[in-house]
């Protein structure tokens, strides 16, 4: 929260100002409705006073009903009521429309920003946080909008009420001058007391939610390791801290709410006493006293709307701060405007590329080339930086030093459409959208017909299982593709890449969950088909590596060797060690077995 409490009030009012500037018309409607409602309420008090003075007192004192006046009075009451209904519609529908439209607009802005900000930014922000930025923070930001027109209308009503009191009697008006500002002050004190407690509760709410999110995300691990009780304990600790914070919020409410209710009642009693004195002095009539007392009764409730707005301001400001953090985040990777010709395979070139996350270097001076139409394999130990190179090739991230060039053009200068049409990355962990098979493969890119989709599925060896799905291409695959197996998800994302006929295909260990036979078939299809693409593949399997025209061997973020597979096998011990690991293990086992067989009998 920014600088102190007055700070909250000022920034809160600024958020409201921003809201009014964005929806001036609807705001006008709802404030109009609210003001009308307020004036009608005061009008009702006067009508009631008039009824007592002109109808009830004469009728009851004389025993003769003043029929005409009574009819007018009844019509006036019903009429006022109808007008109030119209005002209520204006006020509440206007306020609601304003609140919901602003929420929707800011949600669109926040989510658009998510799409613009680079992958590196996303990696620094937890999914749960981004979700609550788009949802509850935007909601909190515009919370005070709902009661705001009511509050503005009430302010108008208060001024009118005090003014009208002076037309009745200046002494009674002074009571209003004392009570209404007192109510207002009490409200301000109330919301100030509330603000830090609310903020604490909100903070804990977020923490409780974060624990639940992570714990349910890892439910399988929690279950398989029997940690349900420990996790419940972790959750429960926070949940009860939240309880304590909410009880503290409740105590403040319990203290101020009854006071706010009692204050207008005290005003009414004061009216009775002072009204009595003024009556004795002959300055007012009984009807006047009734009018004033009635005003106090009907005004007590609306005045609290001001308190609601003030009470919600701290939350609103906190929400806006978080929303603003997203909207004002920079670091989006701007695209250039250079285009590339379509058709033939593309070349990929890394020139002295270095990269690091948070200062820790992951890649150091990496240079290599994937010539047009060739297949290049990238091999290295777990954690050596292979996936980072794949991300750089598809420009998910930009290098810290050096450059990544496609067809000789720096990737940062390429237009977004060109980049997407040229390079297709298939990541290690397949990401599947909650959509149909068709939607997942085509992603609604231009010119991808069903025939093209089936062609891509065939190439990815996914046509058989898709053919068996109940509704084939129209089958929904569920959130994150839960209805598919790991290998099926990988083949679906491979088909997605192939459907766009990319000129450079980047495979980041993209077939790890696919059976060897299936993988062999995929690779054969890729090599043998009419795909004219350069292939850059992160791989462990020798069959994959053997298909490559060149192999790049990576150790701790540096290229230590490159060349044909056979060449590297002979000259680079680290490489040989890595790719022949299975054979060696098998040979070793065979030796041990022989030894056992010799030794045992």
């Amino acid at each position, binding site marked *: 929260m920014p600088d102190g409490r007055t700070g909250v009030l000022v920034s809160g009012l600024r958020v409201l100002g921003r809201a009014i500037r964005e929806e001036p018309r609807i705001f006008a409607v709802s404030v109009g409705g609210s003001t009308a409602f307020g004036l009608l309420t005061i009008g009702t008090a006067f009508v009631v006073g008039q*009824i*007592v003075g002109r109808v*009830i007192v004469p009728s*009851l004192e004389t*025993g003769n009903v003043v029929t005409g006046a009574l009819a007018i009075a*009844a019509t006036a*009451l*019903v009429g006022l*009521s109808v007008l109030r209904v119209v005002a209520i*519609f204006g006020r*509440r*529908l206007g306020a609601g429309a304003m609140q919901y439209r602003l*929420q929707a607009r800011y*949600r*669109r802005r926040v*989510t658009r920003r998510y*799409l613009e900000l680079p992958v590196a930014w*996303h990696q620094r922000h937890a999914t749960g946080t*981004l*979700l609550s930025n788009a*949802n509850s923070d935007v909601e909190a930001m515009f919370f005070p909008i709902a009661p705001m027109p009511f509050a503005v209308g009430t302010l108008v009503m208060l001024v009118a009420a005090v003014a009208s009191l002076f037309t009745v009697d200046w002494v009674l008006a002074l009571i209003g001058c004392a009570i209404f500002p007192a109510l207002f002050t009490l409200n301000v004190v109330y919301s100030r007391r509330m603000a830090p407690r609310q903020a604490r509760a909100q903070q804990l*709410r977020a923490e409780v939610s974060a624990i639940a*999110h992570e714990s349910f995300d*890892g*439910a399988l*691990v929690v279950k*398989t*390791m*029997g940690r349900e009780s420990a996790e419940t304990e972790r*959750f429960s600790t926070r*949940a*009860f801290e939240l*309880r304590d914070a909410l*009880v503290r919020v*409740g105590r403040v409410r*319990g*203290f101020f709410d009854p*006071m706010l209710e009692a204050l207008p009642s005290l005003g009414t*009693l004061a009216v009775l*006493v002072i009204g*009595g004195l003024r009556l*004795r002095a002959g300055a007012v009539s*009984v009807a006047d006293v009734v009018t004033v*007392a009635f005003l106090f009764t*009907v005004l007590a409730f609306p005045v609290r709307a001001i308190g609601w707005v003030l009470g919600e301001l701290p939350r609103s400001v906190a929400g806006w701060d978080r929303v603003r953090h997203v909207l004002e985040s920079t670091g989006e990777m701007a695209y250039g405007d250079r285009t590339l010709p379509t058709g033939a395979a593309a070349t990929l070139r890394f020139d002295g590329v270095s990269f690091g*996350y948070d200062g820790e270097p992951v890649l150091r001076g990496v240079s290599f080339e994937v010539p047009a139409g060739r297949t290049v394999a990238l091999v290295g*130990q*777990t954690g050596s930086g292979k996936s980072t190179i794949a991300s750089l090739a598809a420009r998910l991230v930009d290098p810290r030093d050096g450059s990544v060039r496609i067809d000789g053009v720096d990737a940062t200068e390429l237009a977004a459409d060109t980049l*997407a049409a040229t*390079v297709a990355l298939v990541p290690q962990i397949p990401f599947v959208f909650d959509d149909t098979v068709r939607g997942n493969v085509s992603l*609604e890119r231009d010119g991808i017909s069903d025939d093209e989709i089936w062609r891509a599925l065939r190439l990815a060896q996914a046509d058989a299982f898709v053919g068996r799905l109940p509704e084939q291409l129209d089958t929904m695959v569920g959130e994150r593709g*839960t*209805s598919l197996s790991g290998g099926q998800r990988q083949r679906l994302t491979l088909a997605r890449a192939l459907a766009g006929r990319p000129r450079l295909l980047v495979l980041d260990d993209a077939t790890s*969950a*696919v*059976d060897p*036979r299936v993988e062999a078939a995929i690779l054969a299809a890729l090599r043998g088909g009419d795909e004219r693409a350069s292939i850059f593949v992160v791989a462990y399997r*020798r069959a994959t590596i053997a298909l490559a025209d060149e192999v790049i061997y990576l150790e701790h973020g540096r290229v230590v060797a490159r060349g044909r597979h056979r060449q590297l096998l002979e000259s680079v011990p680290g490489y040989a060690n890595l790719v022949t*690991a*299975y054979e060696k293990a098998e040979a070793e086992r065979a030796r041990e077995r022989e030894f056992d067989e010799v030794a045992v009998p």
Partner: protein
Amino acid sequence: MTRPVSTVEEPDERPESTGRTLRRGLALSPELRIGLAGTLALAIVAMAGRVAIPVAIQQGIDHGLRAGPDMQFVAIVVAATIAVLTLTTTCSYLMMRRLFTVSETALAGVRTRTFRHIHDLSMLHQQSERRGSLVSRVTSDVDAVTLFVQWGGVVLLISVGQVIVTSIVMAVYSWQLTLVVYLAFLPLVLVVRSFQRRLAAGYGLVRKRIGAMLAAVSESVVGAGVIRAYGVSRRTSARLDETIDEYRVAQQRALRISVTSFASGELAAGLAMASVAVVGVLLGADGQLTIGQLTAFLFLVTLFIQPVQIATEVLNEAQNAIAGWRRVLDVLELEPDVADPAENGVPLPPGPIDVRFAGVSFNYPEGPTVLADVDLDIPAKTRVAVVGETGSGKTTFAKLLTRLMDPARGEVLLSGVPLAKVLFSSLRRRVVMVPQDGFLFDATIAENIRFGRPGLSDVDVELALAELGLADWVAGLPNGLATPVGERGEALSVGERQLVALARAYVADPDLLVLDEATSAVDPATEVRLQRTLDAVTRGRTTIAIAHRLSTAQAADEVIVVDEGRIVQRGPHEKLLAEPDSIYGRLYASWLEQTR
């Protein structure tokens, strides 16, 4: 695999009645009743304060102002009213304090119980819901209940009380006028139920739409890389806009219903006032009412209208809260279908574990058969590899073995004890599975490794890593064991995450270790090294590895080949190779092609 059935999915074309939900809710949270009588008593006294003012006005006008005016009498009335107000305001304060403490305590309990219950549900149940929707059960849904209990509950209570007290006072002044007021409100009572039904449906839609919106946002955030790589941010934002707008439209529709309902109350109020004025004057002229009484009655009508209006409003908002409560209760009342046998259970006998499948079949609810009539014995201390093509039923086998699911028919026995009878506390300590997706918590590497054994010191963790041959890898990380792994472990590469997950299972020291493609993203050299060290350190335990890299199968004592839900071959690698045309023979031939 088929699409999991929706067991706890979205409701509710015809939601159950509010009353029934309240009864279920109270039954599951008896804490809410603590001190309820005292709170109610305080509420009743607090309410009485509201009628004090009209009574004071009536007394003041009739006996004070009109008679003279008699200022002494007015002073007495005012002093008495102030005394009453002081008492009732204090009672209000005490009542709210009690209510907040009791309700927050009870609902923190509900939160915790629901959280635990969700973990107790089977994998199938957990996966049948979007994750965000499970989270909302312990967050926003419970918040909605809190709001209802505190706001709705109190206000409703006070309002109803106020209506009753006001009615009594009104009836004392004039039963005829009271009747008039009731008649004016009669139409409202008749339409209010239909409004509630429409509102319930309206809010149901709002909840559904918010769920869809959150799912779309989360997809766009988690899939940010793919969206960027394929240049489909336009399509994604179009989708997002659609869900955001649908949510807004649903909100506005619910609001329209709510406002219409509120406005009808306003109209009824106007009608009541006018009728009271007319009938009151007629009665008064007849000498049946005093001026003060009639005036007080006009005040009483507003006192009657206010709570009726507020109560309708609260009931409207309550539809939203009740929907939340219902969602919480639906989860809490869902019987875990794979449950801990608790007092009927037994621990696993000590020592190495042997495995027996007796006529085991499995299918997902309303799905095709995944495993059919599997009979199998795995002796203790053996190392078994389960191989087969994608979709052959390997993973299902692992899930049945660790009782993540129960078989449709047949029985799985560990060391002779039917799995369904084994206490979870014993099962989860002795049998550990490493799933393919090695989920890590947002903590350091050391904390993740000791997840299963929280007491373990850093030295022990280091020792374990050294035993697994991973000491060099950890030493190469920027902060060693203290390196944070990021959300879901995303600061590490996929292969590294699997290394941590494996170490986590290893330090848990199980007697039966089940590896479900646990090293699929690790480089071959590391995998082979890991396997050899695992073989060495797990000697004396039973290990079952689901694998598609046949290197695992070669190293195992026995290989089990699964095809289309049946065990088609079993035996040591060499023996199975004797039949080159068998399924294993073909799998191995292609593996050789791949790796040589």
